């Protein structure tokens, strides 16, 4: 980096941002400092609930609400892709080059980082009409831990926020996709995972085309 701000206005630069003189800027802060730092789960729950409540006031339907949560997660996914890769040891620092390695990256690295454990399962759509669909399954999404969805909004799954993060990772890795979150837990008594959520990834046609092309050349 050629220009690390020092906080001293040189007089030559026009306006620009001001920086503290003691070097407390993001450029001086080690990128890995908060890699393993922890905060309380309640703090997350409070913030997330305010985020959802606020979003709810500005939309008219569940779909729109989920879209909004998705949009808020998207830029995080884009940035986490780079952040997580740069933290990998050099030999495994390569970006995912096919759908399977991308899904593995999401299931393992992304989930582990954000939620402290891997996602529970990966699946490919068994329907021959939708070869572009893949699923990441989380039995108990952390973001929904303190959320109870009212009956009249039973379609809502606030993990749409996480779907947005996943979508951001896919887009950033050049595997453009639509990602949505669906509750599949069911309400029967004795259900083991009532909050079970499927993240449905629907890749753009060009992703599958490229995948087929690569496969045919190997």
């Amino acid at each position, binding site marked *: 980096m050629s220009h690390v701000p020092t906080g001293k206005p040189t007089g030559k630069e026009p306006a*620009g941002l001001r920086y503290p003189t003691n070097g*407390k800027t993001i450029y001086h802060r080690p990128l890995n400092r908060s890699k393993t730092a922890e905060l*309380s789960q309640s*703090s997350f729950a409070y*913030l997330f609930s305010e985020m959802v409540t*606020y979003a709810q006031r500005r939309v008219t339907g569940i779909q729109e609400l989920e879209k909004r949560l998705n949009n808020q997660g998207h830029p*995080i996914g884009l940035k*986490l892709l780079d952040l997580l890769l740069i933290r990998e040891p050099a030999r495994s620092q390569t970006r995912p080059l096919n759908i399977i390695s991308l899904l593995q990256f999401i299931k393992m690295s992304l989930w582990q980082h954000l939620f402290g454990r891997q996602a529970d399962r990966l699946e490919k759509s068994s329907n021959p009409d939708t070869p572009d669909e893949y699923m990441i399954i989380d039995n108990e999404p952390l973001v929904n831990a303190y959320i109870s969805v009212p009956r009249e909004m039973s379609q809502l799954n606030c993990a749409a926020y996480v779907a947005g993060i996943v979508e951001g990772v896919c887009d950033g890795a050049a595997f453009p996709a639509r990602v949505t979150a669906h509750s599949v837990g069911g309400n029967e008594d004795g259900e083991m995972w009532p909050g079970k959520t499927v993240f449905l990834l629907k890749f753009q046609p060009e992703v599958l085309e490229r995948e087929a092309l690569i496969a045919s050349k190997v």
Partner: protein
Amino acid sequence: MMSASKASRLGEEIWKTRIDKVNSELVVLTYGTIVAQLCKDFDSDYVEVNKQLDKMGYNIGLRLIEDYLAKSNTMRRCANFRETAEMIAKVGFKIFLNITPTITNWTSDSKQFSLVFDENPLADFVELPDDGRAQDELWFSNILCGVLRGALEMVQMQVEAHFISDVLRGNDTTEMRISLIRYIDDELPPEDD
């Protein structure tokens, strides 16, 4: 009255043993996305964004106080506002954000003090927009002011809190000013005639 060092030990103890934890970056990035969304929705009207953040914080504070009381297990009222400050900095901030801001700049009447944040996890990864206004108008961590206002109101203290400096604005410190307006009397239910 609880001494400063005792409050500090209590905060540590609760953080270590009684708090469910998550990766800090999940929290930090989520807060970032909230502020970014507000800036977008209010067309970079940062004064309004500050207000909205304060409101969100207030809503959080109203609920967070119970969590705080349950975890800290201090069923006793603080003897005075100085003790309240100790508990906020060394127990409250410790158990929710794992930081302990420094208490300083008391006024002689013991009704106003500052919290100086050496660390502020909410601002990790943050740089304000370079639009010539954000650094003069936006208080990025303003939600914290609302949290204090809401939480203290639930324990009969009306306070006013605002930031007076922020490293994100190019200041050398991040400092919040808190003033006790009054102790709220327990309101009696209206009399039956």
